């Protein structure tokens, strides 16, 4: 107990008395933690943007006008039982017509042409959303091969827009999956680089104290007793830098949030920060403490060999 008290006291004094070195280390550590913080934001931005894009992909099966509702509902039922499919929406012929009219409300010639007809020219539609963009191919294949689409040998499907949109869907699928991978690699790379910088800074502070460490060794101080205060200082660097980073992120995300909201579809960094504050704060604090303590332990080992 006395030992822990002495190690803590000594660590606090060292942090306070070596204020220039402490200030420099805290600033460098802040950069590292800021990078880690921004990484968690970019992860969230990427995730919401990708989810938004994924949502925009779907496949429409348009039926011929003579198709029976019962057959369509059957197909809907079969589709819903597929594992790849997350949602199937049925749009009746009447709904399709209303939607069409709404969409072309500003184009009187189309509406006039429509009025000329005394029947509804639009077929019913099944809108299919897959769990993952890469699964549209198999859904489309299923629709092709399934003979429920042609009861009595006559096909009731007018068209499946997957085949028209295939190229666009494939491209988007590729972009999404490589953005995912690239994002992860970049995150890892940045995190490692910034941690190395913080580690090196702490190593320098311990290098400055190497003579002191050898004196401590020679007066017979044990390894824990020498190492302890340095680890405490490392942890204080981490906590101080973490606290300052969290404060700094408030004005930063506030400014970024309003300027980039339009760019990242409906994603506001500031409100994300506030909503996930506890989560982000614990990531930053834990990273700070771990980097500080581990750097100290690793850096001091070299000088303990006397």
């Amino acid at each position, binding site marked *: 107990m006395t030992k822990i008290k002495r190690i803590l006291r000594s660590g606090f004094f060292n942090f306070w008395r070596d204020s220039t070195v402490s200030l420099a280390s805290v600033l460098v550590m802040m950069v590292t933690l800021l990078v880690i913080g921004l990484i968690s934001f970019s992860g969230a931005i990427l995730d919401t943007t990708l989810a938004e894009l994924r949502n925009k992909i779907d496949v429409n099966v348009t039926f011929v006008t003579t198709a029976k509702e019962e057959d369509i509902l059957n197909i809907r039922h079969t589709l819903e039982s597929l594992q790849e499919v997350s949602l199937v929406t049925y749009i009746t012929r009447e709904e399709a017509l209303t939607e069409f009219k709404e969409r072309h409300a500003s184009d009187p010639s189309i509406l006039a042409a429509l009025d000329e007809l005394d029947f509804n020219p639009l077929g019913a539609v099944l809108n299919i959303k897959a769990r993952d963009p890469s699964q549209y191919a198999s859904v489309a294949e299923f629709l092709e091969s399934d003979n429920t689409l042609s009861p009595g040998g006559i096909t009731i499907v007018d068209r499946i827009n997957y085949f028209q949109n295939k190229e666009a869907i494939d491209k988007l699928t590729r972009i999404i999956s490589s953005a995912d991978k690239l994002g992860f690699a970049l995150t890892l790379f940045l995190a490692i680089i910034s941690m190395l910088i913080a580690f090196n800074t702490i190593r320098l502070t311990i290098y400055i104290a190497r003579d002191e460490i050898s004196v401590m060794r020679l*007066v017979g101080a044990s390894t824990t007793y020498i190492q302890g205060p340095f680890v405490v200082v490392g942890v204080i660097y981490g906590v101080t830098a973490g606290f300052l980073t969290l404060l700094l992120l408030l004005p930063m995300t506030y400014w970024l949030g309003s300027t980039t909201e339009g760019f990242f579809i409906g994603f506001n960094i500031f409100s994300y920060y506030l909503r996930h504050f506890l989560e982000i704060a614990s990531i930053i604090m834990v990273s700070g403490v771990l980097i500080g303590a581990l750097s100290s332990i690793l850096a001091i080992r070299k000088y303990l060999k006397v």
Partner: protein
Amino acid sequence: MIVFDRVSKVYPDSSIALEEVTISIEPKEFVSIVGPSGAGKTTLLKLFLAEEKPTLGAVYYDSINIHTLSKKEMDTFRRKIGMVFQDFRLLPNKTVYENIAFTMEAAGRTDEEIESDVPHVLELVDLSPKIWNFPRELSGGEKQRVAIARALVNEPDVIIADEPTGNLDPANTYDIVQILKKINDLGTTVILATHNKGIIDLLKKRVVAMERGKVVRDEKTSKYFV
């Protein structure tokens, strides 16, 4: 009893620092090791502190080969030895009080012992008024007295002083030597490495003279001839 038994030390660059040195030092003895720079005085002391390992031979303290001690035993052994260096080697971020207290803390002494012993030992080296100063606020002589107080506070069996007066003026040198002599009179073994002729003449104690890594003379009470 300290015994250097046919100790040789060759550094990785093949320079020979010690060659077959055999010396034995009785408890409560005061031994001065003299010789020009590069004679091997500091290497000899470093071997005794196990800061360096001998290439050949062994160093014994109370019949124990100190280079076979485990890390923990080494810490305990080093607490029996007080050290004074030419460059003082005080901890720069600690006050005079804390520098001395650190050695006691390392030895596992209680807060009460520390609070009573530190002022006492500072009185012994006549430095009580500077108890709350940092090393950078002290003169060379004062720093060396802090170093001696630090070496003394755990009541060590042996005090090792490596050129303790190398950076000091004659008045401070005289003071430091008197303090070391007093410590020896109280029953502590003192090993002093120096090339200061005046100190040897003043002490009138045993002198081991070294040259190029070898012992060239060992006299009970001697004057400095090298």
